[in-house]
Every structure is written in structure tokens, then in C-alpha cells.
């Protein structure tokens, strides 16, 4: 099968809208298709990775654990925008999984290398 470089760009916070959850579903399927998958988190998308989601009170399915399970699907390219974290008072220590923190320019360079960019 052809292997393409797929990047899922996440710029929206979790729970307020469904995009973060349904984006993860796409990531898992792309990994099952053995594609070269990476995830980028910018703007409010970095909130998706904030550790310690407790969703019982809003009766919605929490999906923090899924980020931790990505490695089992051989998805290990998680890129986070430094500037977006800083603007939200977050550091890499606040995140639920190991990520590669980079500048916007570095992220843009990676985006340029992709065959398919899906934004959620």
C-alpha cells in the first residue's frame, strides 16, 4: 500500500466541541492503514493534552487515555507549538504524554512536508 504523510492539525479545545475526539478516531484509523501519521497541536488544541481530565461531572467520555495509547498504534510524532502553550500558561510538564515542543516556524516546515493535512 502507498504510504503517505498524514498530519492531523488540532487547534480546538476538548469537550466544548467534538472535534478533538473525532480527530483522534481519524488518527487511529490512519495508523491502522500504516500511514506516516503525525499530530500537531496549536492554539487551543494544546488544551487537548492537558493532564488530569475529569469528565464525570459533564457526563462526557474522557479521552485523555487515548493520547497515551497512541504509542501502541506506532503513533509517536506529537508536535506541540511552544508559543501556544506559553500563551495558555502551560509547559510540557502539564501535558499527559511526551511530545516534541517546537516553534511555529518549525511546525510550518513539517506541515510543508506533508502529503495530506487534515484539520480538526
Amino acid at each position, binding site marked *: 500500500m502507498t504510504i503517505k504523510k498524514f498530519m492531523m492539525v488540532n*487547534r480546538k479545545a476538548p469537550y466544548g466541541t467534538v472535534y478533538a475526539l473525532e480527530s483522534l478516531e481519524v488518527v487511529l484509523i490512519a495508523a491502522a492503514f500504516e500511514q506516516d501519521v503525525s499530530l500537531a497541536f496549536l492554539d487551543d488544541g494544546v488544551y487537548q493534552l492537558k493532564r488530569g481530565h475529569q469528565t464525570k461531572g459533564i457526563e462526557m467520555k474522557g479521552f485523555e487515555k487515548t493520547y497515551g495509547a497512541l504509542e501502541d498504534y506506532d503513533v509517536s510524532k506529537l508536535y506541540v507549538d511552544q508559543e501556544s502553550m506559553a500563551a495558555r500558561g502551560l509547559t510540557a510538564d502539564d501535558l499527559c504524554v511526551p511530545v516534541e515542543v517546537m516553534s*511555529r516556524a518549525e511546525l510550518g516546515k513539517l506541515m*510543508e512536508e506533508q*502529503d*495530506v*493535512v487534515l*484539520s480538526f
Partner: protein
Amino acid sequence: MLNIINKSPLDRGSLDTCLQSAEGGAILLIEDGVYAATKGSVGEAKLKAAGKFKVYALGPDLEARGMADRVMDGVTVVDYGGFVDLVAEHKASQSWL
């Protein structure tokens, strides 16, 4: 890369993030994104400062919003056929949703 923006720069940060992240190439403004390309708006200053991008705006969306006669200098207005050509000309497109 063809960067597609569909939101007003006064409503969302998608144009800002695109301008600060994307390496270059083209920006196509569609839907509410076309407001960025209008004279005297905050979008005009932002786009002028981002000289590395070739900027396009979708004509039908400008016309629908009564903004077709306010397009800033340096922006190329295209129709849906032009939209298709832009997608074809670039290896990939990214919608900054």
C-alpha cells in the same frame, strides 16, 4: 502549500496562526475569511506584513458580503474554478479550521 482560511481575522486566530506558522506559498480566503482582504481592516495590515505569501480571495464570497469593491491591493480575486486551479497547483492544501 495552499492555506485556506474561512474565518474573519476579528473572530478567530486562524489567519494569525497561519501567517506565523506556514512556510509560505499561497493563502486563499473563503467564506468569512474574505473580510481579511478588505481595505482599512486589521486583516489588510496583517496581510501586507506577510509578503512571503501570495494571497487570493474568493470572489463569490466577497460579492455575497457586499465587499467586492473593497479588496485591498495585492490580493487576487478568483472564482470557484480558480479555487480548483489553486488546489491543483499546490502539492497539498490545509484548511485552518
